[in-house]
């Protein structure tokens, strides 16, 4: 009887624990709340970090990209005695896993490298599950928005791409509102924002930039935008018109790439995808090119975040790794940044040159998202999109 009783109690405890794990949420303001107590390690030099890291012996990282594997060798050569143990795991799963681990009072990662900034800030930062570490070495070269609330080492994009084989003279579109016209009816492709967070971020940014959207409308049509009933702003109106224009939704970025980029198409579609996927043009037989000079912007740039986990077992090694992943003092960021030094992605450090083969972020004109602002209205935009599809 007592065993049975104990079991029941246990089950209830665990259930309650899970509840905690599963309830993230919290207000976006919490994201910028009081940071966790600063660690003395935050300010020590590299040598000191390395010495302490050697004592710790290893550093475990959850990374949303498998490219972390190629950092492993370089890191272990640079910092002998510190074993880097990477785990590839998507941002969504990292978030779930970090929350569940926190509930269980355990931790299996020292560093989290992840995207989905709006969710990270609301779900993890507000719970204190991640702490920021800005390597003093790069602090000066890092714009404030990429140093707080979490350090970002690069920006990726979801931006308007077209088929340059079909349009050798440049982008066929110079204004986002053109996508809602007859010419592009049924020929705009993107991943369903209800399925992928970065596309939802794109839709959200459009709404946040409603004023710019309204201005672009007027620029294209010569008259001020008239909003439909129930539509609050020009951003929402654009989304509504785009969906009504038979926007094609798919499940995967590569499907978008292939649809737009496939060579030999007479009338290829246009759509939103990652600028950096252009690097696969040759391998895959694509003709992807980013549209520049699009009013008001062709898409968004969003950060890849680095953070030390709560109660990291190897705090010194964790900081050492983050420092390494921010790149060395060379113009290209060196070995630690090499896997991420891809045309179409943008280093956050002002002292690292953008990779060749892509236009600069300024020239691209993509909006750099503010994760906190996006987080604030993201779920409302998701709900709004639900009413469209």
């Amino acid at each position, binding site marked *: 009887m007592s065993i049975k009783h104990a079991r029941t109690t246990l089950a209830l405890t665990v259930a309650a624990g899970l509840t905690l794990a599963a309830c993230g949420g919290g207000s976006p303001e919490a994201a910028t709340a009081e940071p966790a107590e600063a660690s003395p390690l935050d300010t020590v030099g590299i040598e000191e970090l390395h010495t302490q890291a050697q004592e710790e012996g290893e550093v475990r990282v959850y990374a949303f990209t498998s490219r972390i594997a190629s950092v492993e060798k370089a890191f272990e050569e640079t910092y002998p005695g510190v074993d880097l143990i990477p785990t590839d795991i998507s941002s969504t799963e990292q978030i779930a896993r970090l929350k569940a681990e926190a509930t269980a009072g355990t931790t299996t990662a020292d560093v989290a490298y992840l995207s989905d900034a709006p969710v990270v800030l609301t779900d993890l930062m507000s719970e204190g599950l991640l702490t920021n570490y800005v390597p003093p070495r790069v602090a000066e070269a890092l714009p404030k928005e990429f140093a707080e609330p979490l350090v970002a080492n690069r920006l990726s994009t979801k931006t308007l791409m077209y088929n340059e084989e079909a349009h050798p003279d440049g982008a066929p579109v110079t204004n986002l509102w053109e996508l809602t016209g007859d010419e592009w009816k049924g020929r705009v492709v993107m991943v369903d924002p209800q399925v992928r967070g970065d596309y939802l971020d794109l839709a959200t940014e459009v709404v946040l930039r409603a004023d710019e959207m309204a201005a672009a409308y007027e620029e294209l049509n010569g008259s001020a935008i008239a909003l439909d009933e129930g539509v609050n702003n020009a951003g929402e109106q654009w989304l509504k018109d785009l969906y009504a224009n038979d926007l094609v939704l798919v499940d995967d970025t590569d499907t978008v790439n292939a649809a737009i980029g496939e060579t030999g198409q007479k009338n290829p579609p246009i759509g939103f995808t990652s600028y950096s996927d252009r690097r696969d043009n040759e391998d895959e037989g694509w003709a992807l090119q980013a549209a520049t000079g699009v009013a008001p912007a062709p898409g968004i740039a969003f950060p890849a975040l680095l953070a030390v986990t709560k109660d990291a077992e190897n705090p010194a090694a964790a900081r050492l790794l983050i420092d390494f992943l921010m790149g060395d003092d060379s113009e290209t960021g060196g070995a630690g940044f090499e896997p991420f030094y891809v045309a179409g992605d943008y280093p956050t450090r002002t002292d690292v040159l953008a990779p060749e083969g892509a236009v600069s972020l300024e020239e691209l004109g993509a909006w750099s998202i503010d994760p906190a602002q996006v987080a604030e209205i993201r779920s409302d935009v998701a*709900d709004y999109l639900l009413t469209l599809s």
Partner: protein
Amino acid sequence: MPSDTLKRTLRDPVVLLALGLLAVLAVLVLVPVAGLVSSTLRPEGLDAWRDVLTGRLAPALLHEPLLNSLLVGAVTAIGAVVIGGGLAWVVVMTDVPLRRTITFLASVPFALPSFALALAWESVFRNDLVGGRVGLLTDLGLTVPDWLAWGPVPVSATLIAHYYSLSFLLTAAALATVNSELVEAAELTGASRLRVARSIALPVVLPAVISGALLAFAEGVSNFAAPAVLGLPVRFHTLSTRAYGAITTGQTERGYVLSVVLVVVAAIVLLVSTRLAGRRKSFATITGKGARRKRVRLGAARLPVTAAVLLLVALTSIVPGLLLLTSSLLERTGSFTSGFTTHFWTGASDPSMAQGMAGILRNPQIVSAFWTTLALGLSVAVAASVLGLLLGYVMTRLRPADPLQAGLGKGLALLSYLPFLVPGVALGAAFIAQFGRPIGPLPALYGTFAILVIAGVAATLPFASQAGRSAVGQISPDVEEAATTAGAGLGRRLFSIVLPLSSRGLLAGGVLVFVNIVRDLSLLVLLVTPATPLLSVLTYRYASEGFTQFANAVTVVIVVISLAATLFARRLEGASQPWLEER
């Protein structure tokens, strides 16, 4: 007097075993499900319930996806049962030639990832809705309507092609035990073969058929890949795509609410189906009377039936299998005209290809992942089959006349059916929370191989318990009671009578579990650590980076392992049951 009855019930070893299993299922299933439910009962969750059930979002979040899910699930279940059951009947009961080949090929589709079947569909039917490459028919200048290229038709068709395998394996195992006298007796009455199949063989294999239908239904409603690939372009959403989408876009509670809806729907389907099947007596076909097997002669129909059957299994196994293999050999993803290369298998690192990544066979991780995958698959298959046998046993032996026992049986059936429907992320998170810290004298299991096994067992429980149930359901109670009167206790009976007599069905179930574990399981992605690399995780890694060929190559390795396991199990089965051999 009632307390006396209760006392006796509680002394009944079958009831005690059932209670023990209930405790196991509580840890494996109830706690995660309860966590799922309770997380939707917090303020954010209640908002999510409101959003889902009422208001302007309900049509998009719930009504349409629910209808679509039910449609896809029902069509998948019916299609899988009709095709898989019909095929099983042809293979087991008739003199159709090439039975071994057909049986083998029919078990291939389940070993294939569902995207391979979606890929096969696309390569034939894809039209120019999305853009990019089109399928064979459009290439030939034919107009493929959207309803044939996208949406419920292709989603259901690919899911049927995927899951008829399940139905086939379960039904064939059950049919193999049908006494041919039953069939002959019916044929002597002048009944047509179809009629015999319907009125004689069907009732006998009904438990297996229902198991197959339930599994196909659950897989149909919970499958994400097929509706995502083939449904989204025409905005065809199911509950699973909505739930997955909500979770990945950070609206976890909403995703969980949708999952709870899915769980409730599935529970209703389960209860309704058992009611429909009724508590009909004597499904048992393994009686103490020996049975000889004789096959129905197809006569003039032999040739056309053979051709149709071969076409069916070839279209669902060889074609997608070859497409998958070929896709791993293409220089350019999905382009069958731009040249072939073995680089993704055996190539050395070449900066001009695939960002300098070497072929998978040169990747030291793949070897270790191979062995870990194999070890995990075997451990889970064995553990789940044991659990499935015990579950199947108590579910068939608990007495429905006793309300306590009837309730226990229903509870166990329900619990063991649900894990499919709990999203991998939720289940995985629950396991971390549950096993992340030491429990009493037990160390924290999180990060160990053991937790992968436990999670794997939980996730594949539906296969194992349905297989166990249909396998034990075939055994006549007499055969076991004879052992009871001989003085054998429960353990002895299970080991010496029930286990050997259900081994055929259990092996079939074990293979399903194995295949499911080595294939792809989003749940495991949450639980693996670098110490426990798995092939499915490697696929995921490659796929998420857009290295489709690498991903396909690893998938081919997985399929080969699965098929090898299937063949091995078949051999084992033949060796273990000499009394069922044809003479």
